[in-house]
């Protein structure tokens, strides 16, 4: 069996007194879609930020693409082939859709050694990518500030599909998307994975996870509470892993958090 594309071992992360991650081990293979599930505050976004280079782990190590890596900022991770869609979006509201789509990857042409932005070309490419994905946007030249929540999320989603990479991290990418966009988004994820890209997708909707993922990893209170192939589990079981019991139980036991025995399942 070949080495996984991404391999995390014993990742921990503290924010002051808060232990957001208490030792995460997980793998992602090329072409595999992993759904990362977990309750609010479980540490999912923290994990994503650590993989994408935006946050340093307190301890633990990351192997990516056959090498041990310590990304110090997102541009390194990006250069290594990791694309990320963040939960709190990363758009510049003061510029238009095209400028956001190409952010950091502008098409230029050198004139006397000076790179000149090719606005027409960029507009064409953006228009194609957006309409291929079925997103409706009033005009590619409106500032993103004037778009609805879902339209904004769609731009980010289309961006990763267009530019690709080796590993894609999606932090609740469908939270604001409409029914149709979501369906298309799920299909895009499968298409991307079929190209051999590894995908981690975070969601709170079981239906989405079970529709798209090859494997489900559940995080609870900063630990891996379950790591199961999708085919071998059910949504109800996943929910149980997420909440650490039945639905009605949870909530009042904040004080006992640390004492809940954490289920650990290896695949």
């Amino acid at each position: 069996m070949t080495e996984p594309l991404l391999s995390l071992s014993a990742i921990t992360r503290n924010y002051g007194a808060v232990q957001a991650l208490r030792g995460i081990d997980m793998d992602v293979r090329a072409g595999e879609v992993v759904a990362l599930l977990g309750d609010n505050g479980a540490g999912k976004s923290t994990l994503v930020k650590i993989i994408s280079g935006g946050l340093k782990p307190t301890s633990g190590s990351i192997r990516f693409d056959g090498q041990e890596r310590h990304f110090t900022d997102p541009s390194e991770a990006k250069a290594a082939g990791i694309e990320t869609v963040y939960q709190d979006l990363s758009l510049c509201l003061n510029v238009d859709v095209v400028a956001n789509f190409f952010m950091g990857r502008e098409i230029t042409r050198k004139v006397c050694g000076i790179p000149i932005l090719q606005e027409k070309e960029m507009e064409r490419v953006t228009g194609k990518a957006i309409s291929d994905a079925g997103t409706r946007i009033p005009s590619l030249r409106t500032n993103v500030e004037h778009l609805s929540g879902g339209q904004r999320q769609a731009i980010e989603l289309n961006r990763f599909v267009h530019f690709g990479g080796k590993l894609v991290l999606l932090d609740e990418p469908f939270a604001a998307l409409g029914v149709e966009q979501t369906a298309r988004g799920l299909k895009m994820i499968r298409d991307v994975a079929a190209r051999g890209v590894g995908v981690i997708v975070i969601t709170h909707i079981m239906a989405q996870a079970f529709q798209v993922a090859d494997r489900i990893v559940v995080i609870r209170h900063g630990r891996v509470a379950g790591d199961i192939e999708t085919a071998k589990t059910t949504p109800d079981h996943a929910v149980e892993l997420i909440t650490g019991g039945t639905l009605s139980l949870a909530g009042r036991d904040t004080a006992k958090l640390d004492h809940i025995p954490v289920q650990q399942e290896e695949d």
Partner: protein
Amino acid sequence: MTPARRRTFEFLLDNLVWLMLITVLVIFSLTIPHYFQFGIFANILEQSTYVGVMAIGLAIVIIAGHLDLSVESTAALAAMVTGLLFASSGIGLGLSLGPPIVMIPVSMAIAVAVGVVIGFINGFFVIKVGMSAFIVTLASFIWVRGLVVAISGGRSAQSLDSAIRIIGVERIFGIPLLAWISMLCFVVFSFIMAKTPFGRYVTLVGGNETATYRAGIAAPKILWSSFILAGALAGLAGWLLAIRTSGATANLGTGMLFNAFAAVVIGGVSLKGGIGKLPGVYAGVLLIYSIHTAINLMRLPAHWTQVILGLLVLAAVLLDTLKLRLREKLL
């Protein structure tokens, strides 16, 4: 509203500051004796030079989401260094560097280098140390001006080398070379801001620094460059000031900061960052100096000129603000 009318309207609003400039010039020409003559317009262009060049750098830093209060003092320091080295009387050392043709680029390079150093220091504290640009550059405003006083001992340098002075004396089409230099700067930097990746990144960083950081754009580098640019342009402005003054004094350029900020804001640059275009800033500078010149010609009681100037500039900024409202209302 039809799309065509909307487009004309948008165009007019986008260029409101030019409209304001023309209106103001027409009104002044009609009401103030002696205002309407070529010499006055040439004076306005010349007087706009220093603050104009300074305002380009300031606008870039502001578009990048920060601000630079030290440009005025930086210009003064560059002017003083130029005066100290290349002026022959007062505290001037009267350096001479062979043929006139090398004097101009060498002295300019030195002045710009002074600005680059100050910009680099500002950038260091803001980007590497993470201090607020306001307080860092406010401190620079103080200590750089202090440095001017310190290196000059409060005295002035005069009689700049005539090889350099030529820039301040020669005219093309009746307009001083100085003014052409500032126009050239505006053209070049307008192009850079609108058409190159650097300009695009400055705008993006000013809009959402986190987003650019996550997109792999080297936001710190862009920011630092914008501070260095602001310093360099302030240095250039100082060099031009030294040429105009034919030397330098310890208090040279005081008060320019207000004019530069007013021009930038009137020109449509948002102090919140991310929004603004340089041609508008040039119109803003011209507008400010049209007002200054009008005040010189209006024979106002001397005690009231400062109040009136402050209020007129406020009025100009006000109009620019009302533009936004108008747009919201009418579009």
